[in-house]
């Protein structure tokens, strides 16, 4: 059975950090899943492409930012406004298990996909048992 899409309303960032940019900032909705060798973050950032996204890692904090210009429409008047338009920002704490150098990002159809590989040293290792001849 196919269900109807139900997701939380677009939410603005609620934090005390002073912004250096004017305008509204929203929290992108995100999915995070883990496999044996990586973590994957999918973040919805409609209006953002690879040239308007910024990903930083600082002190174990991974921050995603997407910049969106709200359109100016001369000659039009808004008659229905169900969502706001502005930048996106969200931070996640990284565990030590993530290989920072190996983080990869891609942007398609307004969805940012971040692949965070786990450090090789932390991956489960197979220990081969040698036959001991006596």
């Amino acid at each position, binding site marked *: 059975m196919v269900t109807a899409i139900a*997701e939380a309303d677009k939410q603005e960032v609620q934090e005390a950090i002073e912004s250096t940019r004017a305008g509204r900032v929203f929290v992108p909705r995100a999915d*995070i899943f883990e496999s044996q060798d990586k973590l994957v973050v999918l973040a919805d950032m*409609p209006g953002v492409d690879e040239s308007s996204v910024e990903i930083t890692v600082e002190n174990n904090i991974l921050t995603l930012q997407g910049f969106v210009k709200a359109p100016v429409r001369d*000659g*039009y008047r808004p*008659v229905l406004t*169900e969502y*706001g338009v502005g930048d996106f920002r969200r931070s996640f704490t990284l565990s030590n298990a993530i290989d920072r150098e190996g983080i990869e990002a891609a942007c*398609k159809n*307004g969805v940012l996909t971040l692949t965070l590989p786990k450090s090789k040293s932390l991956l489960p290792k197979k220990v081969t048992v040698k036959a001991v001849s006596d």
Partner: protein
Amino acid sequence: MLLQRISDGRFADNSLSNFWRSLSELDAARHNLNRLLTGDSAAGTSSEFPALNVWLSEDDALVEAELAGIEAEDIDISVTNDSLTLRGSRPAYALAEGERFHRQERGSGQFSRSLQLPFRIDADNVEANLSKGVLQIRVPRAESDKLKKIMVRPA
């Protein structure tokens, strides 16, 4: 409610444009307040998907929706008389063997929304454009429904 508000727009002239803008801001504020009152905002799925923004001019309407992660071929737009229907689906991410979700906030499934505009639509000239997960539909007013100015000649 939605239909009412838009069909009322038919009579709004330019001097009322500020009024409409404040009304839509008020609407957004009311929406946020509702979310606060109904409890956990993360779990609050009060509104229909997708959320829409609509602008009107004398000749057309612009309808916008945020449809991140949806391909153009998965969106179906149909027009009848004065209403526009938007249908589509976003597939759920299928976890591979050994993968598990830590967090799942992005919705998946089907959606359908209809919108009634305050004019007859010129169905042949509706244009839809999907870029970076944002859908924009330009809905032109039918020629027969355009405002006509009648010159008064001196006798």
